[in-house]
């Protein structure tokens, strides 16, 4: 699905990520942890080609991202659902429209019933017609997650999707992601929340990646 070979990246002042190699198999479930500022968000950005590696090779759906044109990258993003850490929306459109935005820009039909069901899953049925600036922090994260999965993407990358929601809601969101994973989607979640990782491990064969000292490690069974 997604493959990294000796990938390095730096924003300019020295390398941040060094010689990372990884193969995300279809249907796998990964967590990504590491201290704040370690490069988790940066790592995810490499996976959906918002950043290009300074060295090494990132292959997504069997294509090297370096060789892709801008339109091909856009197409690629329709197959990867991303929950960004700073959930940004179009502030002039309603929550429902924002969640349906990937369908709109891809010119696909919007199934209203499905949209409402999804909004119900993330607990935003009541906020459907609200504007994004009227949402609470956790509601924004949930809307972002809904937007990430509405296209039925092959890969879901979620950056700290439960940082602002309570425990019950985070379990609910995790359950949604686990369900999608069971349907064959590849899932990567960057998080600090060890409890979330533990409770996921009870439901699915999740592996934990850790960024430490600029390198990617596979965390042991101690988690």
């Amino acid at each position: 699905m997604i493959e990294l070979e000796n990938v390095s990246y730096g924003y300019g002042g020295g390398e941040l990520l060094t010689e990372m190699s990884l193969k995300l198999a279809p249907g796998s479930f990964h967590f990504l942890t590491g201290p704040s500022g370690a490069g988790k968000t940066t790592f995810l950005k490499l996976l959906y080609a918002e950043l290009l590696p300074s060295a090494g090779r990132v292959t997504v759906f069997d294509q090297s991202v370096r060789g892709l044109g801008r339109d091909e990258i856009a197409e690629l993003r329709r197959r990867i659902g991303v929950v960004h850490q700073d959930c940004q929306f179009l502030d002039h459109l309603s929550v429902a429209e924002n969640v349906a935005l990937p369908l709109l820009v891809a010119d696909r039909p919007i199934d209203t019933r499905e949209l409402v069901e999804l909004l119900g899953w993330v607990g935003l049925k009541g906020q459907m017609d609200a504007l994004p600036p009227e949402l609470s922090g956790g509601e924004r994260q949930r809307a972002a997650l809904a937007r990430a999965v509405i296209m039925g993407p092959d890969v879901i990358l979620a950056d700290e999707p439960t940082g602002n929601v309570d425990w019950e809601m985070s379990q609910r969101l995790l359950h949604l992601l686990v369900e999608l994973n069971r349907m064959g989607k590849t899932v990567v979640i960057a998080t600090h929340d060890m409890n979330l990782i533990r409770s996921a491990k009870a439901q699915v064969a999740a592996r934990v990646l850790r960024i430490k000292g600029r390198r990617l490690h596979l965390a042991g069974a101690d988690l």
Partner: protein
Amino acid sequence: MNAQLARARAFLTSDLQSDRVVPPSGFTARLTVFSAAAMAFLAVFALALSFAAGRLADRWSDALAQSATIRVSAPEDQQERQVQAVLAVLETTPGIASARELPADETQALLAPWFGPDLPIETLPIPALIEVVEEGTGFDPEGLRLRLQAEAPGAVLDDHDRWRRPLVAAAGRMRLVAVASLVLIGAATAAMITLAAQAALAANGQVIRVLRLVGAHDRYIAQAFVRRFTLRAAGGAAAGTALAALMLALVPSVETGSFLTGLGFQGGEWLWLPLLPVLGGAVALAATRAAALRALKGLM
């Protein structure tokens, strides 16, 4: 051709869906519309001024240029012969439509301001006056003078050049000023629309980022902005043009006789007006497209 037409229609009507992704309004939008309108308004007046100046220059040169006078004063016995000689010369001079000796009563009318209406013209040794009507192209006064000197030494050509030259120059300068301000207004408008489009795109950085990240093609994003801005600029310019045209059409044109001309458009000149919104829209299209693509280039 058909494909182009279809594209143009899609551009205008389009899936209004895709337009919604751009925030509907805001101050930069109003700024674009208003700038386009105000500048179109000014441009209409500059255009009118330039047309009027052009007409003025034409009239002034016409009114004064197309009549020249030749005065023949010779000893009484040679007078009639010299008049005939002058008329003969004039007949073979290119650029002269007609020439005739003024009869006594017309000479009298001409002189009335100086001598009063009761001048006993027959008893005076006054010269004969020959009125020359030029063709549109005019004639060569220096050449004519030389020929007259040879054929009729008592003949003096007065082509009113003295009067004509400064007036025509004045009208020409007025027209120059009008055209220069038209160019200035055009350049300023283009720059303003460009900057307004860039300002709006800069203000919509988040919109562009979000759209790009959810998988929108560059084309789709640029198009949404381009359509908005083109329609805004063209609409604003159309409103400004219409308002100015209305004002020009309604303001009672002071009746000016043949010497002056009204400020406004005549006949085919009106056809220039629809150009203004088209130009405004074209500038907006190019500027927004460039700005959108530049903004997108910064994002993967």
